[in-house]
């Protein structure tokens, strides 16, 4: 079952659940990349998203 989760600046392999790890491995296989690469992509995407939101909030305030 899909499980909602929150990705913060601190997201990394150590704070993902075993289910999340398994899902990440499956997706990495599908994309033909390693789990580490999939993790790195996830972290950089989350950080870019967070930074964009912070910039947006900064403009609004």
């Amino acid at each position, binding site marked *: 079952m*899909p*499980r*909602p*989760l*929150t*990705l*913060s*600046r601190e997201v990394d392999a150590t704070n*993902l659940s075993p*289910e*999340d790890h398994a*899902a*990440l491995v499956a*997706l*990495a296989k599908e*994309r033909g*990349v390693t789990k580490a690469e*999939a993790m790195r*992509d*996830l972290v*950089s*995407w*989350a950080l*870019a*998203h*967070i930074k964009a*939101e*912070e910039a947006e*909030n900064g403009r609004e305030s």
Partner: protein
Amino acid sequence: MAVKVDSIEEAAYIAGQAAENKRLKEENARLRAIISAPVERFGTPELVSWANRLWEILSEYPEEDRGSAAFVFTMGAHLEKFAKAWNSPTIAAKDARIAALERALRKAQDRIYYAVDWRHEGADETLKQVWREIEEALGEAAAPEEEEAEHVR
């Protein structure tokens, strides 16, 4: 601040797409730089237009179609155009002038280094002479038409 996602699958999928897009953009920029490098160096309108057409052909055919006869013939004809132009007497003459100019500049550079390093007697005169030689070499490189006309005759 944090990102809320419905599932790790969704987040990892989107992140994967974003990474792939970034990779493709970088590859695109890399290929454009490779293609435009000689254009920036030589900068002739013919070469710019040739390189642009090369880029268009690559864009028109996705990678999986590049084994097709249409791509091979189109690209072959385009490359042939370049080879013919590159081997033309005009280009060969320009190439020879560029080589001569480079030789003259290298020679001048060595003499300038020598004059500056050792500040020997007559260094000023040496520098003036070198400058005259550079001007002569530049003048020859800038006025090729007469030479070419003679060559043709």
